[in-house]
């Protein structure tokens, strides 16, 4: 298990260990988010996918996102891990866990982290479709003001 607040994992992660990372005596609330690989995207049946990353930049940007969450919300702990490599339907692609004295901060920080990860961290999804086609997803950026 990694000691950082954000990291990329090339193998399945142990959920019990992840959860233990955010346990804290001051915490009265814990919120987590799991992103799973689903069997369809925009109406097309999906067989599986692969995540690729620019590891050095993704590590730095992901850590920045978690640090921002800790600054914005009253948290005890926050951890995020994102899978890279080949994943199957039902696999967990991303896990976010935060603990806080109160539930509001826990929910808000959890949402903040996953939204920013999806928006900023250089990770790309390559989907394989049931019809034999495959391709990279390059969604239009939600925000257009980035350098």
């Amino acid at each position, binding site marked *: 298990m990694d000691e950082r607040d954000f990291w990329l994992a090339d193998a399945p992660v142990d959920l019990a260990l992840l959860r233990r990372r955010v346990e804290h005596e001051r915490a009265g609330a814990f919120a987590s988010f799991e992103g799973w690989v689903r069997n369809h995207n925009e109406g097309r049946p999906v067989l599986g996918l692969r995540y690729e990353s620019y590891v050095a930049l993704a590590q730095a940007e992901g850590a920045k996102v978690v640090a921002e969450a800790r600054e914005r919300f009253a948290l005890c702990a926050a951890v995020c891990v994102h899978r890279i490599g080949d994943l199957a339907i039902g696999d967990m692609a991303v896990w976010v866990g935060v603990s806080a004295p109160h539930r509001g901060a826990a929910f808000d920080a959890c949402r903040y982290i996953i939204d920013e990860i999806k*928006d900023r961290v250089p990770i790309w999804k390559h989907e394989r479709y049931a019809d034999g086609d495959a391709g990279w997803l390059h969604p239009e950026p939600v925000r257009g003001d980035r350098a």
Partner: protein
Amino acid sequence: MTEVRLLYFASLRDAAGQGEEAWSTDAPDLRALYAELQARHGFPLSVEQLRVAVDGTFARWSDAVRSGSEIAFIPPVSGG
């Protein structure tokens, strides 16, 4: 000429047929460098759709091309 190392990811890597390459350029800034590479590799993404990073840090398209740097073009991300 300025010597740089280029990193390509996702659909840009597929279009380039390689994940990285050494490159010599006269491009004054990163925007002009991308235009040069787009012409060479037929990249499907416009500069407006991309972000650019130099030596592991996000950069601006107007930044000068520095010799010996590692330049990565970042397609719209799709993690999460």
